[in-house]
């Protein structure tokens, strides 16, 4: 992939993570800055989680709750819809992204609404809602500061919690100078934030409908819960008369008290805050307004039916696996070429489009930090590993790699052949002129020396050791 996916929502077909990552790494200062910024969030997360007694037990509880909910998702969805409707909300079900977009557009169209404010929702990113609506004459304004920044740059978010983390404040200053008329060269975050606030206030006042994502939906009460740090979801859902809340089917929790588990984990894992600044519960529309809840499947029931990848459906989109991932920190979100980047995105992306995202499960050293950081205990690095297997099964591993592994497998089956191959390599490599040994073919040797080539193998050393003693 050569450029970030465009705002029209069209991702380039085949993502080459390694190549995109190499370009990111080439700007050493920026890559290190990105790494440091996210590591700082990871450290905040560590401190926040350390302040909670029984953090690990809390993770167990969350994982258990999710597993339980997913095991009877149909029942809980029914219960949720019944209760939400009883409170006066309209519940719409969408099978896929196209249906979701059509439903949202339908609601707006029927009411002649052309100005929509949106608070952060990864689901609408997944469905490419913005370009869909804009093509139909609706002005869509993302109201989360980071989201607004990337929207003005015609880029998708590069991180699910910190959508503009790939940008430095100077770059944002330039953008605001161009788009919002701030002074040239102004890059003080305070000044920029104030400019964005004024600009967004105008949009809030003009909006006829507000769209939000959903962090949790409660089956027992029919309510939806939205967590933001900027209060923009609250502005967007209280100023206009119409509130549309979009959620994936996996957002359900059975009871209101289950929230206690997830809300404690979410903010701490995401940003290291003890709790998100604004956590708003919507139970039915406001007195003179309308609340529409759009519940989307878009491939989730397929994921649910798969015993290996089912657990990844528990994801609460905290972004902790991205912040901890040593590869994400150094390759940036765009290198993944998928709406959700990082470890979890490398599982969800291939599920959507295995061929297009076949490099993602390999964009990991399988260090396992993601699995240990995940508040709902998704076995991320094992699922990445399982995806690799799956890609081979589907014939999607590049033939060179496949051939290399076949050859290695064949050699290693026979101890004599393995010894012979080892002998040849250990004699051949040191004999090669440096230019050949470190030729283009040798990706190891571009920045690293090859290991030493000893004269004797362990077997030989062991034999003489044994004979001596």
């Amino acid at each position: 992939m050569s450029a970030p996916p465009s705002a029209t929502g069209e991702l380039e077909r085949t993502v080459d993570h390694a190549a995109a990552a190499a370009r990111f790494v080439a700007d050493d200062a920026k890559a290190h800055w990105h790494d440091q910024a996210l590591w700082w969030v990871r450290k905040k997360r560590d401190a926040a989680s350390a302040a909670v007694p029984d953090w690990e037990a809390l993770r167990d509880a969350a994982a258990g709750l999710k597993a339980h909910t997913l095991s009877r998702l149909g029942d809980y969805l029914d219960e949720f819809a019944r209760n939400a409707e009883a409170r006066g909300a309209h519940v719409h079900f969408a099978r896929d992204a196209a249906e979701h977009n059509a439903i949202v557009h339908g609601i707006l169209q029927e009411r002649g609404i052309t100005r929509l404010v949106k608070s952060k929702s990864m689901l609408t990113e997944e469905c490419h809602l913005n370009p869909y609506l804009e093509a139909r004459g609706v002005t869509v304004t993302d109201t989360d500061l980071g989201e607004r920044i990337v929207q003005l740059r015609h880029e998708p978010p590069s991180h699910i919690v910190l959508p503009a983390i790939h940008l430095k404040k100077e770059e944002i200053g330039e953008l605001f100078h161009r788009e919002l008329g701030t002074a040239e060269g102004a890059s003080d975050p305070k000044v920029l934030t104030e400019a964005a606030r004024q600009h967004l206030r105008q949009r809030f006042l003009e909006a006829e409908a507000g769209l939000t994502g959903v962090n949790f939906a409660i089956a027992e009460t029919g309510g939806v819960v939205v967590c933001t740090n900027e209060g923009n979801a609250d502005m967007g859902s209280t100023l206009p008369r119409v509130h549309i809340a979009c959620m994936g089917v996996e957002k359900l929790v059975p009871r209101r008290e289950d929230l206690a588990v997830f809300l404690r984990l979410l903010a701490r894992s995401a940003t290291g805050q003890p709790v998100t600044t604004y956590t708003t519960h919507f139970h039915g529309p406001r007195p003179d307004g309308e609340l529409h809840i759009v519940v989307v499947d878009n491939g989730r029931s397929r994921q649910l039916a798969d015993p290996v990848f089912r657990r990844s459906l528990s994801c609460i989109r905290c972004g902790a696996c991205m912040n901890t991932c040593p590869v994400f920190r150094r390759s940036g979100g765009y290198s993944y070429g998928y709406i959700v980047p990082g470890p979890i995105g490398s599982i969800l992306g291939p599920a959507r489009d295995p061929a297009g995202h076949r490099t993602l499960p390999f964009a990991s050293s399988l260090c396992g930090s993601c699995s240990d950081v995940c508040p709902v205990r998704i076995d991320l690095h094992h699922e990445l590993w399982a995806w690799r297997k799956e890609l081979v099964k589907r014939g999607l591993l590049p033939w060179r790699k496949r051939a290399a592994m076949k050859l290695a497998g064949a050699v290693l089956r026979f101890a004599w052949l393995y010894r012979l191959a080892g002998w040849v390599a250990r004699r051949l490599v040191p004999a090669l002129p440096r230019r050949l040994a470190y030729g283009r073919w040798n990706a190891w040797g571009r920045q690293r020396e090859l290991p030493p080539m000893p004269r004797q193998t362990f077997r030989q050393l062991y034999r003489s050791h044994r004979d001596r003693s």
Partner: protein
Amino acid sequence: MLTVGLFIPCYIEQLYPEVGLATVRVLERHGVRVEYPEDQTCCGQPMSNTGCTEEARPLAEKFLRLFRGYEHVVAPSGSCVSMVRNHYDGFLAGQPGFDHLKRSTWELCEFLVDVLKLPRLEGAFPHKVGLHQSCHGLRELRLGSGSERRVAPFNKVQLLLSELRGLQLVELARQDECCGFGGTFAVQEEAVSCMMGRDRLADHERAGAEIVTGVDMSCLMHLDGLIRRERRPLQVLHVAQLLDRAEAAA
């Protein structure tokens, strides 16, 4: 006398034979009889990690055949032991002897601490040492508590090192960040892999380490490749070699 089957990963057999020999000497010094089944080759991890399960299967079967007779199997490698313990089920579940093999295949330090119930090491190693916690040792074998988890802190490798006279363990800013080796990841994602390695080394350097040690020679091979290319003032030493030298000096 306790007899163990010695499992020497392919790249140690071929490229770092001294690490294998140091393992033998450390074990023997603690009264363990070592047997090395010569027909062994590789645990199958490179194929398995690339998704090529069918290429790994015969190697898992071979492993079971060669090692099932031993009370314990010991290897100087966290990631190869993890392969046996965490990934062989798919090939060998239900086969005679597998359950025992899985439970009794140990990484060297783990074996010293959990089975031999050391440390009571007599040894001296008067150097500043940085411990590179290889990811598979840390997060798959749980040789240490890991910085992500909120559990009572423990670290089996550190426990052993702290027994050695004169050894000064340096404090890293990122205790257990991955070095970027990751098997075929090291070549597939060469750019990120090397950046990770350099960052890892910089952390050790800033902390004042002279020597970087760890339980996985593969991580150290990658770091050493960078050290030698960039002539950095560091040296890598597998923990088996370090223990061997320390004990020999005592």
